[in-house]
């Protein structure tokens, strides 16, 4: 096996009789931003939930040389953190409590406080809303909190499932800026998006997922030039 930081091979996932992922091969190197695009129902979220350890799978997922367990709390312990589709915040709890939950595995109080400050530097609005119930935040604020919550675990790999869903173009732009910034800290990012153009712009490499299989892969800049991709995903 070659030494990629994260390596997925022959990945199959089933929901009962539904064969949702049909033999996926992917890899990511340390500090890369890798994107996955695909139409509704292609299996993008399934891929993300599987990598986060929630769904059982056949095949192999290796992260930093070791197989990734299909148990969510152990996956987090290995440094993989998911921002799921539609955020899934702890809506009944305060912003602060959501951030504490992000760091629930850690015991270094001072460092946790410092990481919280780092999140506020990224998203100052969160600091103003610390004791507000997270379910009452605006969609954009919720997305900021969801990303901050995931960062509080100090992930080595961040999985983002449609982070720009429902956000205004301005906010989306800011979001992609922070994603580049997060990568700058050495975090590997795997990102799923409907928003194909922006995604390919910000990512190093891209996979096109179609009905549970990888239809195309390569450098984002090249994939963007492919006429089939332009037709199907970029609205040409």
């Amino acid at each position, binding site marked *: 096996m070659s030494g990629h930081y994260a390596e997925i091979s022959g990945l199959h996932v089933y929901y009962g009789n539904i064969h949702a992922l049909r033999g996926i091969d992917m890899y990511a190197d340390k500090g890369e931003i890798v994107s996955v695009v695909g139409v509704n129902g292609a299996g993008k979220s399934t891929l993300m939930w599987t990598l986060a350890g929630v769904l059982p799978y056949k095949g192999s997922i290796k992260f930093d040389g070791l197989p990734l367990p299909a148990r*969510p*709390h152990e996956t*987090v312990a290995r440094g993989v953190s998911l921002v799921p589709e539609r955020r899934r*915040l*702890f809506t009944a*709890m305060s912003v602060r409590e959501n951030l504490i*939950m992000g760091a*629930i*595995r850690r015991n270094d109080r001072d460092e946790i406080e410092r990481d919280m400050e780092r999140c506020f530097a990224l998203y100052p609005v969160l600091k103003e809303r610390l004791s507000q119930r997270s379910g009452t935040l605006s969609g954009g604020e919720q997305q900021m909190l969801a990303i901050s919550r995931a960062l509080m*675990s100090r992930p080595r790999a961040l999985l983002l499932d449609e982070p720009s869903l429902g956000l205004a173009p301005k906010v989306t732009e800011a979001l992609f800026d922070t994603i580049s910034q997060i990568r700058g800290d050495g975090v590997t990012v795997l990102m799923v998006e409907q928003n194909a153009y922006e995604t390919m712009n910000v990512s190093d490499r891209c996979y096109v997922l179609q009905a549970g299989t990888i239809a195309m892969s390569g450098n984002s800049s090249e994939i963007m030039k492919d006429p089939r991709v332009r037709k199907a995903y970029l609205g040409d």
Partner: protein
Amino acid sequence: MFLQTLVTGLSIGAIYSLMAVGYSLIFSVLSFSNFAHGAVIMLGAYIGLALASKLGLGFALVMSGAGAGVIAMINERVAYAALRRRGAPSLYLMISAMGCSMFLENMVYATIGARFYAFPEFFGSRTVRLWGSSLSLLDLCAFVISVTAVFALHLFITRTRTGIAIRAGVNDMTMCSLMGVNTDRLISVVFFIAGAFAGVAGVFLGVRYLVYPTMGWVTNKAYIAAVIGGLGSLPGAMMGGLILGVLETLVSTYISSVMRDVFSFTALTALLICLPDGLMGAETEDKV
């Protein structure tokens, strides 16, 4: 006289609260009605009974709490964990709970027997005089300990990291595990807490009434209390318990003791018609 009745009512109500809080906590985490809660209360009472005469009430309370907590935890591991992991509908969990309840009661029948046991007299009929009324020391003790315990649980749930994790699990169990929480262990903690409260309630019930295999059926009152307060809300369960205890005692003192249960179930039905979410259920989207 009224003050005396009120204190008796509050003390019975506080015992209902102890039962209701645990029942409600389990309901909010796993969304099913744990019908085995009464059996855990009963077993807690027997543990207390075995220890109380030699070691005193305080020690009996602590050991019953710990023992019933462990029993509830084992109960979850054996009877619920597999169903829960498979994502079975909550009806299955409920039926499994009924089975556990019958199993435990009949185990006690078969091994200890159907005899009624009484706790030794701890306070005799010692009373405290207050504003011209004489209040039972036992009532005061049950009330103070129960309310303190529920308040401590409230602080635990709102202030500690484990408490925050429990509330997060109530909110979204999958996301809670994605934060790095071992949810199997978290659910064990919840069952231990609920069981411990049930054990303490069992001892107080045994001291007040008697200890026998079906004494856990009184948890019907805990279900009512939890629903009055708004299922899933801890402060609600506490309020529900106190209100139910006081109302019942007033009814049996001033109207007739036969009417007591008729009254509680009528009150519950009436309340549900007017306030389907219970007292604290509506505004607190924040369960627990």
